[in-house]
């Protein structure tokens, strides 16, 4: 039934109709949870338990439960924080920036990517709070009116900027994501049979009726939010990088950090999106919506950002040499050849060398290779933050204070635990929320079929439309230069 365009690859394969889209996406929400989902959730819940135990130890006994010491005041905590925030970048980039650039292919992946963003930011936000010595006073970082006298927050502190950056990013992302969900919630509401589902999805869909006015407002809000979020993609990680860049620690005090961190964030974000998508499309049988073309495109973005990151790594070394500052030079020599050389070279291998494999077309279009690659990039980006934070701190100015850092079991527990938290949230999302934006996917269906989509579900096996000419293809349609021969 699907018409294959001679000039570009279809964004959705398998000859889907509007009804098919609704069916395919809603099926996950409406059907009883399958065994694979249950198994995955069980694992995630076990990890979540690890998280709660580790947090309990941290809160009850103190930060001493971690492996930190007098010289290395941040290690896994902030590594994980930056890592999760970085991961949280892809969602907004996909939904906002690609929306503004009218990259229609984003429609099948933006929902999950945004959800990932939100969950990643939630995971990230755990660390700034948990790493505090007295987390019950965490609200003191907000510029709240208080009864303590003339106390105010320190607007010079990058940590305060972080508070604003992360909270803004989180709220905007959340609103953006939710706005996109409203029409789909309405679809599910309309199809819902159980009384609880009816009530729940009614509430969630905010009384969406699908009127022209609703759609018009929906489009407007999406565009505005996309406009608001786009600078956030840049600002959040810029500000996170300033936690380091504004300090005096050699290896942190680097002006290249903002662009380098943003590129790194997108890099790691796309890697995580790929990891999740590759699983989701199989588990929920969404191969027709998240196609090999999507994967190839995301691979390319990963390669580009990975290369930027690689250039940044090299630039840091160049500047260290060029500056002729003793401490700076030593910091970088120590990174590459000091006691944590293995972390540095893991980072270099994972982040600089691996993404270059994407130049090879076979790699780009290979699902197993892409999956492995995305995991490697995730690991590499974790090491990047570890390298920046720990290897800079552990040997800074005074050799008398040079130390080694090794994580405690609680450090590991909290990290693994946030992965559990993330997957618990993501699995719940995948089960109860439509993982693909039905409404927007439907809007790209017509680009790929001859006479526009049909409104009634009919048996695709009986009626297969023949390929037609290219008439009716809108000028704005994306052109895929990755076409098969």
């Amino acid at each position, binding site marked *: 039934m699907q018409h294959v365009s001679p000039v570009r690859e279809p964004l959705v394969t398998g000859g889907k109709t509007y009804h098919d889209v609704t069916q395919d996406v809603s099926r996950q929400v409406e059907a009883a949870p399958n065994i694979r989902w249950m198994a995955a959730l069980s694992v995630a819940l076990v990890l979540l338990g690890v998280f709660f135990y580790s947090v309990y130890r941290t809160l009850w006994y103190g930060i001493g439960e971690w492996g930190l010491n007098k010289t290395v005041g941040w290690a896994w905590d902030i590594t994980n924080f930056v890592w999760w925030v970085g991961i949280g970048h892809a969602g907004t980039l996909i939904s906002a920036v690609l929306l503004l650039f009218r990259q229609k292919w984003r429609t099948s992946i933006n929902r999950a990517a945004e959800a990932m963003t939100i969950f990643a930011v939630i995971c990230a936000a755990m660390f700034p709070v948990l790493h505090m010595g007295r987390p019950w006073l965490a609200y003191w970082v907000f510029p709240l009116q208080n009864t303590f006298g003339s106390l105010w927050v320190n607007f010079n502190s990058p*940590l305060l900027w972080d508070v604003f950056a992360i909270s803004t990013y989180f709220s905007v992302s959340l609103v953006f994501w939710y706005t996109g969900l409203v029409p789909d919630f309405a679809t599910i509401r309309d199809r819902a049979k159980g009384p609880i589902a009816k009530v729940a999805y009614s509430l969630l869909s905010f009384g969406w009726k699908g009127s022209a006015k609703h759609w018009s407002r929906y489009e407007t809000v999406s565009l505005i939010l996309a406009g608001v979020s786009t600078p956030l993609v840049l600002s959040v990680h810029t500000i996170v990088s300033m936690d380091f860049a504004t300090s005096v620690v050699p290896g942190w005090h680097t002006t290249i950090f903002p662009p380098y961190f943003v590129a790194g964030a997108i890099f790691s974000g796309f890697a995580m999106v790929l990891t999740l998508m590759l699983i989701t499309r199989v588990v929920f049988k969404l191969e027709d919506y998240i196609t090999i073309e999507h994967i190839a495109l995301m691979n390319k973005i990963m390669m580009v950002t990975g290369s930027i990151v690689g250039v940044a790594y090299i630039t840091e070394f160049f500047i260290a040499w060029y500056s002729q500052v003793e401490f700076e030079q030593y910091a970088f020599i120590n990174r590459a050849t000091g006691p944590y050389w293995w972390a540095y070279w893991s980072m270099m291998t994972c982040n600089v060398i691996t993404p270059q494999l994407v130049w090879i077309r076979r790699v780009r279009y290979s699902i197993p290779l892409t999956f492995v690659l995305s995991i490697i990039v995730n690991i590499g980006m974790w090491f990047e933050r570890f390298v920046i934070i720990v290897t800079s701190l552990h040997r800074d*100015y005074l*050799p008398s204070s040079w130390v080694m850092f090794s994580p405690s079991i609680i450090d590991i527990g909290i990290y693994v635990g946030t992965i559990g938290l993330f997957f618990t949230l993501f699995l719940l999302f995948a089960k109860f929320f439509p993982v693909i934006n039905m409404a927007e996917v439907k809007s790209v269906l017509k680009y790929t079929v001859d006479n526009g989509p049909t409104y009634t579900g009919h048996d695709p096996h009986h009626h297969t439309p023949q390929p037609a000419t290219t008439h009716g293809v809108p000028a704005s349609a994306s052109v895929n230069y990755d076409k098969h021969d």
Partner: protein
Amino acid sequence: MQESPKYWKGIEELENSPEFVKNALTEFADFLPVKESNGSADATVAPRRDFLKLMGFGIAAATLASCEAPVRKAIPYLNKPEEVDPGIANFYASTFFNGQDYNSILVKTREGRPIKFEGNPESPITRGGLSARAQAVVLSLYDGGRLQHFAKKGAKIDKDQLDQEVRNALAGAGRIAIVSPTIISPSTKKVIADFATRFAGTEHIMYDVNSAAGLLRANGGVLPAYDFSKADVIVSFGADFLGTWISPVEYARQYITNRKVSKEKQTMSRHFQFESNMSLTGSNADVRVPLKPSEMGEAVLAVYNTVVGGGSASSYTDKRVQTAAAELKRAGARGLVVSGSNDPAVQALVAAINQNLGSAAVDVANPSMVRQGDDARMSRLLRDISAGQVGAVIFYHANPVFDHPMGADLAAALKAGKVRTTISLNDRLDETGELCTYAAPDHHFLESWNDYEPKRGFLSLAQPVITPLFATRQAQDSLLTWAGNPTTYYNYLRSQWRGVLGGDFNKAWDKAVHDGVATGSASPAPVAQVAAGLDVNGAISAIKSAPKASGIELAIYEKVGIGNGSNLFANNPWLQELPDPVTKATWGNYVTVPRAYAAAQGWEQGDVVKVSVNGKSVELPILIQPGQATGTVGIALGYGRVKAGKVGNELGQNVLPLVAMRNDAIVYSNVVQITPTGAKSPIAQTQTHHTIMDRKQVVQEATLKQYIDNPKEVTEYEKISTPEGLAKPNKVSLWQDYEYKNHHWGMAIDLNSCIGCGSCVIGCQAENNVAVVGKQEVINRREMHWLRIDRYYSSNHHKTEFETKGKLDTYAAMEDPSENPQVIFQPMLCQHCNHAPCETVCPVLATTHSSEGLNQMTYNRCVGTRYCANNCPYKVRRFNWFSYYSNEKFETVNGHMFTDLGRMVLNPDVTVRARGVMEKCSFCVQRIQLGKLEAKKQKRRPQDGEVVSACAQSCPTQAIVFGDMRDPNSRISQILRREDGERAFHVLDSINVQPNVTYLTKIRNTESSEFNA
């Protein structure tokens, strides 16, 4: 008039009975049932209203009961003691001596509780300095491990009953021995002498853990008093005179007097150190030569041959010994040789050299008294005890079961009941005390009167500063009581002093108590036997005939922190956690081995080895020690306590059984076998990277020659390019400078004067309630010291090799210290930067700048992000990883913050920090405030020297100067003016944080500085 018809409500109204009439007047027909009308008149059913009433009462009562006002125990003085004002500290002069080193102290008391010691500037001996050990002893007053009552076989016994039993036992005891470490109290000695007259057959035997019996014997029974300030050339053979030998606080001050340099005084003494282990003294030496203990005699002989001549040829060939000898000879009377050896032959040669030189630094006419132990007598006594020939033994602050090499024999004899009556006057049931029948614990010295004569002609007093905490009795009173003398020791002491202090006794006495020190002597003038008594030829032949050692030699030494390991030191968490000045290790002892040896054996630091001699052995981890003489290993004594108390037990092992005894004299070395055990035991070091990595911005040093040539060139200043040419980094700044209108506090630390002794570390800890964290947390690198002393070894490799060897290899090579490195100490504390990196990054403004230049930490605002600590280039900020005062993990090591008894030592002016907050040096802001308030009360500005930080106060060498930099006449301003452009530098000047702490470049009296190659 027609009568209206009348209707009755019922037959009752018609009848109009009286009962009806009565009811009709009431509003309701019947009484409301007060009781619950459930049909029965059961009295047991609670009526509703009563129930409500009772419930109301109950709730109110319960509420009131639970609102009971807290009982406040503060009881106002009925008659306020004169001079005691709540919130205001009083200082009392006193003295601390326990067989280690003598310290004249001022005891700071708050509301009657001693909380800190400061050096007594009136003392002509210690001159305001204090050792780290003495600083820490205030904590031992509140040590819960002290025996709190009299005891018989460990069980509590009534004082009178004990006295009765002891008197009876002593009466028929026959031979009685009083065993003690060196006692320098004339009155105590008199008490013992009185005791001996009462009980004939009493002998008083003194022995020292760190024996100087050889030195005493060589000098005819007197311990020469040394004055290092009078020596231009000092040659020390294994004498750690700055750390542990005889009177380190006194010597340190003298030594430094002749080491400080300035424009006016461009000379300094030259110091040669020949030793096996890297000691504190050796690390300060200009020339340090490692040698085996067995070579010591020959090395001294080599010096003797050059200086005096006439001895038989020495087999010691190191050329540096000739240099030392030649310089000594040239220095003449300004030369001094000292030796830490306990071999009378070596000491005789040393004395002969000094005599020949006519050394002005040696005084045998007014000798030192602080070592009087006689190894031979003690050994004899222990043999007699084992043979059952002693009827009674009184252990007076002596713990020979632990700290005598023959302790195991003594323990066996005591257990076997070879002595009928055994009495311990020790402050706790220690290793010896628990084997004694009777325990009559002595007061802590802060609860006692006593006198001291550390050096002939110099007297010193101790006065009680608190009522005895426990049911103890001063040992002298016990001895007086048992001897049947009814007088108190206080009166006894006063009557003794009557003979010493001339003139108006009461006035002189009051002054002596006030000052803590007095001149005059209670001892007879010593007979100068040195000239006559020196048997040089005998000594030379003794050295020549000494058994030649082959194999690995063990050199036993004392650690600066734990010293002789006696009760007051061993169970003291401050001292246990005081990093050793050289190894930077805490909590326990270890085997120091040369690196080449460890490498050859394939051992790593922390590998446990078994060190054995004649079937006796200890198993300890190794510590790779640069500067350790080839063929030797070192182990500190004073560890391996089992009955010291919660803190001190089971730390390290006791090495004393491994010593050699030669002619009944202890030789603190032996030939040992070392075998690996395969086990590992990490050593808790506070510093694990040992070289400076050629970072001249951190620490700077130069040679004396360079200094004399051009003082302007000894310090390398970091310059940056500006349009006006090269300038100091602080000339260019993005920041607005603070304006200091009133005070601007600053500190100058003279690296040339700092010997690294660690006294300031403990002074700071006591002043600022710094928590102790214990061994595991030190291993985790989380010690809390606000002030630390960084120790750097020099390396053979330098940046100059970048061109030839490449940066990577050079940097890697620079991490290794030289085989026998030069050492530099750098006290490191909060630099109170004017452009503090910590201040800008705190999100909640918990660390801010004061109008007087202090970087201040507001604990209760801190949320604990640790960003400030990360951003501190000096890494001086300390985080409260745990609740050190309530987490049970720290109850053993930080016990003084857990109990009411222990908490008495805390400084009430300083907050005990909560879990999760950052802390750091405050420049003793409480002391600054106090000084300002005192001045304000008198309507004047604080004078220079009135406001002194705890570290500056306790520094025996006055390396730390604290003061107001806005006062042009203050000492610090003068130093900064004088040294500007010469020796004054800021650590990490190039990052332009503009510290308020200035360091002065170290000057070495050597040909070259290995740090500046």
